[in-house]
């Protein structure tokens, strides 16, 4: 366990020394909330959003953004680079299993997402009066499920990409459509019915739906939970099958 903790700590150290990486995963979601909240009409309750304000809805969306950036860009790039540089191979010659490094990377990413989420709510709550989720447990569950679903897709990217650069490009290609369905450009509530249906089956769309529902005190709906667990199982299995250590 000490070894695993040290590996996680090493992942954090590396991440903290990449200012850009830290900015996009932790600071950027908060900045985005800050900018959106500066628009007066976004602070007015809206009938389209079931009485919520745009800024309330975006609290969940920017957390989805953080998950998307970690899971589709940060983590796959880091893991593919580790393989490319022979770090996983070197680890295979030590008593530590390379899978421990994978686990450490996932753990560090998950913690980063959670920290980002806490910062978003702390900031949005203090500055714009965004309420805490009415079902905090359901909200955390939504974040964890969405993270697991997106991360398993990220693992498949890391497994199949021949290099760190390739992983980054593939991740970027997936990032924009998945963020679209999470409602980054237009919240799910204002999407046309067809798009919302599609969104229900995308990992960040399903994750955002769960977060949104938790905001208004609903328990997780079965469809979204099933969709996210499905991503975890299917993509997790593909990643396990195709992940190469060298």
């Amino acid at each position, binding site marked *: 366990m000490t*070894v695993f903790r040290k590996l996680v700590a090493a992942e954090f150290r*590396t991440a903290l*020394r990449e200012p850009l990486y830290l900015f996009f995963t932790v600071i950027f979601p908060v900045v985005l909330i800050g900018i959106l909240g500066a628009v007066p009409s976004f602070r007015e309750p809206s009938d389209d959003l079931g009485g919520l304000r745009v800024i309330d809805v975006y609290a969940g969306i920017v957390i989805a953004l953080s998950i998307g950036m970690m899971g589709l860009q940060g983590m796959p790039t880091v893991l593919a680079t580790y393989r490319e540089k022979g770090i996983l*191979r*070197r680890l295979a*010659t*030590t008593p530590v299993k390379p899978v421990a490094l994978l686990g450490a990377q996932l753990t560090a990413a998950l913690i980063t997402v959670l920290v980002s989420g806490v910062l978003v709510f702390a900031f949005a709550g203090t500055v714009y009066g965004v309420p805490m989720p009415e079902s905090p447990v359901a909200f955390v569950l939504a974040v964890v499920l969405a993270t697991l679903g997106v991360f398993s897709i990220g693992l498949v990217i890391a497994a199949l990409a021949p290099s760190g650069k390739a992983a980054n490009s593939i991740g970027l290609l997936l990032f924009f459509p998945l963020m679209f369905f999470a409602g980054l450009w237009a919240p799910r509530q204002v999407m046309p019915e067809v798009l919302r249906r599609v969104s229900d089956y995308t990992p960040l769309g399903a994750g955002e739906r769960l977060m949104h529902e938790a905001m208004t005190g609903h328990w997780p709906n079965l469809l979204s939970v099933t969709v996210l667990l499905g991503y975890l199982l299917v993509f997790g299995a593909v990643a396990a099958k195709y992940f190469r250590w060298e």
Partner: protein
Amino acid sequence: MAVIEVKNLSKRYGETLAVRDVSFAVEPGEIFGILGPNGAGKTTTVECVAGLRTPDSGRITVLGHAPRDRALRAQVGVQLQESELQEKLTVREVLELYSAFYPDPADWRKLAGDLGLTEKLRTTFGKLSGGQKQRLSIALALIGNPRIAILDELTTGLDPQARRDTWDLISGFRDRGVTLVLVTHFMEEAERLCDRIAVIDRGEVVALDTPAGLVEQTSSQDQKIRFRPSAPISDELLSAPPEVTRISRQGDRIEVSGTGNLLHAVTSVLAVNGIVAVELRLEQATLDDAFVRLTGRASEESPS
């Protein structure tokens, strides 16, 4: 009992047979060299021993285990060619992290000192020079206090001083009973460090002996002595000892070829005749010569 036993190892990559029927045994406490030209199959061979590659055929045991046995990981240290570390971790962080992997690690501060890395402990891996990265890589192979260390191209990229320091360090580990397998194409390194050497060429072991044995085995050509006599001396006098086989002259310089204790024979003749040999040079066959004969190729570092 041998600590590493390789029997009839073969490994193929696609159409290429990288290693063909390689067999050798490494005895406890020795430095075993694997010498050969680039692409001869040296790295493939040791990577099979290190459990990183699966042989197509043949049998390998390391300390009585199959190479992939996880129990070996704490007992076998490996330094790989071209394997990097996390760019943003400092030397100190890497050493601390890797020593945490092992049940009975070496003192990383001492290891860093021995490898001349103490000044660089706060430097991140990405900012190290090639030689410093190499030295860190060697440190990581030894950090777990292994019983066996496999070192692939130990001193490639090191400057002459660092190379000599590394050789001392490796000798020190041998003196403490560590068995070392050294892949190299540096003749001087093999000659200085190795107790025995397997010469691998085109995937096959072409010779296996001590460095001196290899030289002897392959040297058809004898030693040569070159000197300038302080006074003229005739060929008859010089060729009297049975060790002398040939004499040639170039201006006032004489080159005497022969076998056995040639130097003693020639200097005795000179002494009896009251002649001093000026600018005396003794030329013996080297491991380099042996290598060229065995592989039909010049070693990569030979100046010619």
